[in-house]
């Protein structure tokens, strides 16, 4: 049962344009969402997060949007840079229910073309 889904295995974007990565979830108990970025041969690194009490969180070039009714979140990167090329994982947790683990999506490989 895939509770967190990233339906696009890969995405290719021109440098300077906007990258939009999508994530859907099925568990309505999830109340905290995170995005991680992973380079080859490295562990995932935390990028940005959002609580279910918000619908948007921004940090520099990165913005995460949450649509609770649609159980959908997206990560926007603008402008995209070559160093953004990596695999991006969406993750969710039911923190307010005492959950202590993150449930991850399958990842989307983002390639930024010069």
């Amino acid at each position, binding site marked *: 049962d895939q509770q967190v889904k990233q339906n696009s295995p890969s995405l290719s974007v021109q440098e300077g344009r906007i990258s939009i990565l999508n994530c859907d979830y099925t568990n309505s108990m999830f109340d905290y969402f995170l995005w991680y970025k992973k380079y080859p041969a490295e562990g995932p690194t935390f990028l940005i997060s959002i609580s279910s009490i918000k619908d948007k969180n921004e940090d520099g070039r990165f913005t995460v949007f949450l649509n609770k009714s649609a159980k959908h979140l997206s990560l926007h990167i603008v402008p995209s840079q070559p160093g953004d090329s990596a695999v991006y*994982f969406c993750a969710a947790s039911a923190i307010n229910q005492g959950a202590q683990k993150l449930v991850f999506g399958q990842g989307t490989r983002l390639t930024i073309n010069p």
Partner: protein
Amino acid sequence: GAGVSQSPSNKVTEKGKDVELRCDPISGHTALYWYRQSLGQGLEFLIYFQGNSAPDKSGLPSDRFSAERTGGSVSTLTIQRTQQEDSAVYLCASSQDLLGIYGYTFGSGTRLTVV
């Protein structure tokens, strides 16, 4: 230490052999997690520790998998009688307390190949 350290970084083993993977969390981090990533898959939860106890072992795939943590620090994940489907990158993560708003800090992983 400065980050989460995992060893070995790569391990090739023959089917049927036992392997032990080690994780050194960030000093002072009380929570420790094991995940694995199989080829083309997302991160699959295996087990987490709060201190030395493991309240949630629900992700361990079979009784061939076990993990322990000693002194609230180093953890080892042991896979007995390895099978080819055990081939994956095994990732360890730690957090300062139970899951916080910044999630976890991950190590670089151990790539296990069972031949």
